[in-house]
């Protein structure tokens, strides 16, 4: 496939993406989870995807990974449309495209030892066992886990440590893009900070790109170069992280920003007042719009 310069600059580009889940039962209406999604991620860049439950942010990540049914539009990875990739193409893609899930408790098979979990993506790519074992040791070192973790089971680790294992699994094949689906939401505050540091460090060392999905505006602001805000299955606003997370334009993003409380009583009181003012203002605007319509 020939690719123009513009196509090559973006590692991942999503164009007019739509995802629809078939309805249950005979001739049931299908459920449209995403529509008209347009995003792009460059090399070494992090795109933060923020939204509330049901906004479709997780579905977008899953659509990129081939885990959600794409019914329209394109997902272009390095110039190739992968929205309808077969399992065989996916296997090839898995070298460059990986995932870290939210729940470190269910994302690791409880019956497998850590070493086997980490070796899985390597053996799929046909790495000989000895080489795979060496790489597993490197990975454990890279995410700051002890080497004896290899022969232990997931249940012997805390949430933060399990998430490191999940990150190590994603890193195993040195991918170009990692989809991170709420990777710090289930973690304690201090663990969250450590894991975020790990994500940043890995990006500095390897130049990997992230599609970072989170409901927490603070997390997204901290780790992203650019931010896209999702609401009811669509993207309402996107741009540089600093602009979107500090001076948003869309009413929903404004509400989201002022809803997250700050750890200082006086500033929080101020923010609360701002939020009430904003809600009042938006309500009046809606009323006016309704009258005009």
């Amino acid at each position, binding site marked *: 496939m020939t690719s123009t310069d513009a196509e090559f600059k973006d590692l991942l580009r999503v164009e007019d993406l739509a995802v629809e889940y078939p309805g249950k039962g005979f001739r049931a209406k299908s459920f449209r989870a995403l529509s008209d999604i347009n995003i792009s991620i460059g090399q070494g860049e992090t795109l933060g995807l923020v939204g*509330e*439950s049901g906004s479709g942010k997780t579905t977008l990540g899953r659509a990129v*990974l*081939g*885990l959600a049914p794409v019914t329209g539009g394109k997902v272009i990875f390095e110039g190739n449309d992968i929205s309808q990739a077969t*399992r065989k193409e*996916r*296997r*090839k*893609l*898995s070298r460059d*495209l*990986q*995932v870290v*899930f939210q*729940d470190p408790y*269910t*994302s*690791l*098979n409880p*019956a*497998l030892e850590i070493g086997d979990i980490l070796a*899985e*993506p390597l053996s*799929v790519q046909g790495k000989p066992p000895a080489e795979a074992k060496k790489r597993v040791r490197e990975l454990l070192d890279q995410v700051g886990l002890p080497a004896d973790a290899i022969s232990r089971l997931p249940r012997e680790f805390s949430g933060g440590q399990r998430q490191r294992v999940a990150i190590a*699994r994603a890193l195993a094949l040195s991918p170009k893009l990692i989809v991170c689906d709420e990777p710090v939401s289930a973690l*304690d*505050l*201090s*663990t*969250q*900070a450590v894991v*975020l*540091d790990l994500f*940043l460090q890995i990006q500095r060392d390897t130049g990997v790109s992230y599609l970072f999905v989170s*409901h*927490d*505006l*603070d*997390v997204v*602001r*901290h*780790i992203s*170069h650019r931010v896209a805000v999702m609401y009811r299955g669509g993207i309402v606003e996107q741009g540089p*992280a*600093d602009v979107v997370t500090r001076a948003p334009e869309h009413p929903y993003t404004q*509400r*989201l920003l002022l*809803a*997250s*409380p*700050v*750890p*200082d*009583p*006086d*500033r*929080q009181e101020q923010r*609360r007042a701002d*939020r009430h003012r904003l809600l009042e203002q938006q309500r009046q605007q809606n009323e006016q719009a309704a009258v005009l319509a």
Partner: protein
Amino acid sequence: MSQAVELTGQTGVVVRSHVIHKVLRNPMGMIALAILAVLVTMAVLADVLAPFDENFADIASTLAAPDANHLLGTDSVGRDVWSRLVFGARTTLLSALLCAAVAIGIGLPAGLVAGYYGGKFDGIAGWFVNILMSLPGIIVLLTVRAAFGPSVWISMIAFGILLSPGYFRLTRTSVQSVRNELYVDAARVAGLSDRSIISRHIFSVVRAPIIIQTAMVCGVAISVQSGLEFLGLGDPTVATWGVMLSEGFKNVYLTPTLLLWPAVAIGLAVGALVLLGNAVRDALEDGEKVKQRKRKAAESASATERTTPAPAKVRQARGAVAAVESGTEHHLVKVTNLGVGYPQADGSIKKVVDDVSFHVDRGEILGIVGESGSGKSQTAFSILGLLPGTARIVGGSIQFDGNYTVAPGEEKVSQERLTKLRGKRISYIPQEPMSNLDPAFTIGYQLVTPMVRVLGISKAEATKRAMKLLSDVGIANPERTFQAYPHEVSGGMAQRVLIAGAISCEPDLIIADEPTTALDVTVQADVLDLIRDLQRRLNVGVILVTHNFGVVSDLCDRVVVMQNGRLVEEGPVRTILREPKDPYTQMLLSSMLEGKEPMTMLVSASAKEAVK
């Protein structure tokens, strides 16, 4: 077929060594395995152990008593009973295995495919299963015999097919429960083919139930087969236990032992298989159960130990509860040097809360902050008296409105005292709004019933109050919500309903355990506003358990910080958030992302600073 044989062969490898260990340690499992080992040895070494061929007839000595030649005597045509018993073991056990293999060979792959892919195959397979299950088994077996002759193998294949729905359903259900687990998704992303996903990640879930089921099925196969043969439908030329049983029954008045030996063999084999299945199941149930039992044993042991020094203390506590320390009556809640622990298997007590003291006054919001495992929820639950049954108060006291709910020296929260307070004067807002509403009842019912019980008002009056409460907590259409079932409302709405429930009986204290953690940020802001308004309006005391400093700064007047069951710092909210003294609080606050330079290290940077 070949696959099924492979499966049964795998049993040793599949069950982890510690499971085998556990089965061996269980006396029932040990006995069952020993019996099965003897029977299998008999079957394998039949040619060596049996002095005669199974059908060799010594016409000269029919129905002979046991002697040196014939260990267990002979039957009506002079065949050696011991030899027939040994050869019968071979045929009977092999045919039972054949039955299980056929059932697994059909049920397992079909169940795996149906469970993993669902869709059309699942539908069609389910239809076949329903047909198979509606067929009367014995009649089918009789028909098969009539059509194909009295072969034990053919009848066991037929029976295997009849039993395959059991495996199909078992496999399908287990597969469905893990099909959407994240680790299966991760394997898909890694590019594993469906076959390797099923064999690596999904098969491991079904193998344990399959092993258990197989033990049971073998037992059933032996008894059904023997039953058919006992009725005279077996193949008289092949020695099986069932055929021997049938033979023996014909001569039961002449030589009753002819009936005894096959019956004993059948009983032992079936019993051992069932016991083995139970033992494997117990071994796989993750040791949790064993620990529980041990813990209870340890408890009763320590309880007997305690009886000697304790009576004086107990008597003192049982009478009028000791008066609280004077000068502290005005506190709504006062927790003094509280310790909560759980007795362990070895008799020691694991403390989860240790030496925690704080107080809450009327109209005040106290925040308890900490990470998971800090003991913050345990502290809150001990005030509510909702600790698990195994928990022990290992020290300190709790007083509510000038009376002890846990007096010094008491080991348990007195349910008698707390039942009077809970609901009426102390109420609770939980973390997961959805799982705290009963899906089987309407929201209105769940609000009205406690009010009728606790306040003793009529149902009509309670309904009126419930409507008022629902509109008080900001629900736009109270009538609709009142009639709705919990699944019909959103998470934020459900939390409002629970808050309405918490204030319905006009409590003095509300304990809120992470009330907004499960909610979206914009909903969280609304719920926090609601809690603040209600608290001011009703002038109640609130204990807010949370891990979020933003929530703390939004609501709380005072804060206590907990780490590993200990209270590390206490103070007014501004002091704690702005000038934390304790290194742990400082670390927690420095982990906050608010106000941090984006794309910089959080922990490593501060660690470096500390080194400098």
